[in-house]
């Protein structure tokens, strides 16, 4: 099949799945924050509130779409477009798995495999700053302008330690392409410890990946700051700056900013997974780890069936057995040979990225926010020197041992 048609197919699939995943990421966030705060979260709309994103989308689409008369219309309408398009570009270079063969067509599980893949994600997040800055300025509103300027200054301040923290594992893998970076993390040492970024031993005498833990922590902190999430939430906080740079936006444009924020979160978590946690590679060698995904799904299915049979709420009699059957079906799919090389790497990648996204949501539910001057001092006074020092240490180790 020619390249163009195959790319169109992959593009349609990735776009559809990504946009649905963004909507359901909001559901996951609301449920997790609710359970952390010992309440239930949305549970009215579908079984366990699963139709809540659909209903929210309909609500946002049918709300009155105001364009206030005092705004600069061209930039007011262009700012969410810039924010969303730059956030969605990053998914194009993120691989979901190794080379697969479907119906006789061999292809990589990735939209495009640029040999500067990491730089594309950094560039996209750099240009995404304009969405925020223009949104703040075009709204013709003091609070929005201040929120926009603060947000853009924060984002460019934390881009520098982010780039340096990303450069540290790239020194070890020797490539800028994400697929090759994951392939450089294959293999196991001592028989069962995976060669992931943070445990990397490779051909060196001692695991130099231990020092990548610092880079990983730096990367996570800068990732929180880049996506404007708590604890670096000040530019868009509701009670600090009257919702900051998106105060004059309503309905779908407001939803566009939220979609851009979640898409940025997913991109950065996927980047962190590929660079530090080994992408789609399993934690212990292949024939044994192939049983872990079906085991997890089968366990979940059996638990749902058990609780469905001994139900507490009346509606659980109908919803939980359905979930149980679905989970058991997915477990069976993971064992089927034609789908196994696709689904098993995808499971490991999604579970690691999902764990990082859960960490995002967990931190949001737990920590207070930084004040703006504390935030900037933290970036330039602590993150930047530590990331430069970390790069120096990793460079010295790579030169000495690899």
């Amino acid at each position, binding site marked *: 099949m020619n390249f163009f048609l195959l790319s169109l197919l992959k593009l349609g699939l990735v776009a559809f799945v990504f946009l649905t995943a963004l909507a359901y990421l909001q559901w996951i966030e609301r449920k997790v924050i609710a359970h952390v705060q010992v309440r239930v979260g949305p549970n009215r709309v579908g079984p366990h509130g699963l139709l809540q994103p659909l209903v929210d989308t309909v609500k946002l689409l049918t709300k009155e779409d105001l364009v206030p008369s005092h705004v600069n219309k061209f*930039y007011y309408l262009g700012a969410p477009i810039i924010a969303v398009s730059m956030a969605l570009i990053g998914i194009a270079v993120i691989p979901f798995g190794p080379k697969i063969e479907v119906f006789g067509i061999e292809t990589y599980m990735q939209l495009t495999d*640029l*040999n*500067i893949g990491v*730089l*594309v994600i*950094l*560039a996209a997040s*750099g*240009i995404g*700053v*304009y969405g925020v*800055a*223009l949104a*703040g*300025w075009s709204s013709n509103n003091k609070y929005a*302008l201040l929120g*926009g*300027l603060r947000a*853009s*200054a924060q984002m*460019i301040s934390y*881009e520098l330690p982010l*780039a340096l923290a990303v450069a540290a594992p790239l020194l070890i893998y020797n490539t*800028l392409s994400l697929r090759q970076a994951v392939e450089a993390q294959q293999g196991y040492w001592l028989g069962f410890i995976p060669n992931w970024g943070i445990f990397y031993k490779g051909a060196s005498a001692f695991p130099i990946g231990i020092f990548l833990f610092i880079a990983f922590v730096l990367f996570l902190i800068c990732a929180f700051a880049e996506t404007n999430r708590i604890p670096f939430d000040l530019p868009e906080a509701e009670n600090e700056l009257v919702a900051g740079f998106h105060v004059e936006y309503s309905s779908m444009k407001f939803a566009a900013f939220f979609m851009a924020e979640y898409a940025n979160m997913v991109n950065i978590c996927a980047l962190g997974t590929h660079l530090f946690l080994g992408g789609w590679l399993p934690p212990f060698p292949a024939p044994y780890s192939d049983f872990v995904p079906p085991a997890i799904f089968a366990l979940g299915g059996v638990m749902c069936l058990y609780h469905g049979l001994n139900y507490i709420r009346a509606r659980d009699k109908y919803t939980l057995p359905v979930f149980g059957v679905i989970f058991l079906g997915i477990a069976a799919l993971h064992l089927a040979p034609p789908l196994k090389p696709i689904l098993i790497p995808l499971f490991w990648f999604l579970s690691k990225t999902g764990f990082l996204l859960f960490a995002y949501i967990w931190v949001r539910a737990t920590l207070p926010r930084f004040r703006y001057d504390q935030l900037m001092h933290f970036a330039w006074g602590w993150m930047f020197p530590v990331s430069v020092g970390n790069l120096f240490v990793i460079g010295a180790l790579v030169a000495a041992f690899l």
Partner: protein
Amino acid sequence: MDVILFAIFAFLSVACAVIMIAQKHPVSSALSLIGVMGSLAILYLLLGATFIAAAQLIVYAGAIMVLFLIVIMLLNAGEEPKPSHQSLIARLLGAPLIVVFLGALGFIIYISIPTEETKVTFAAAKAGSAEDVGMALFTRYLLPFEITSVLVLIAILGAVVLARKEME
């Protein structure tokens, strides 16, 4: 395909440059300059310079122009006032003469090199990946690299000294 892409992005860069020098408001000028830089990044990609294209987007369009925009928004720079006197002849003859002059300049540069010599196709780029640039940067060009890092340090010190509040 190369020809179509070059035509589109060359036209876009010239259009954005013309918009930049013709707009009244500095924010519009800044955004048009970002458009120029984006089109130039695509042209660098067509020339096989993948690392320079990414560096242009990250450094120039993603950091320097954000700095410009922040300063423009902070200083609340308004539109330029209209010039107090404008001669009719200048306006009538000016714009077409600029187009003629630019066209003549482009044409003269174009015919100065025989065209059979070098064609730009994306597949024929011989060097330009990050590995090549890095290899040359840290072996042959190590001294300029160190000197520019000292230069950036001096620039940071200068900017901090200029922009801080006066001590009593």
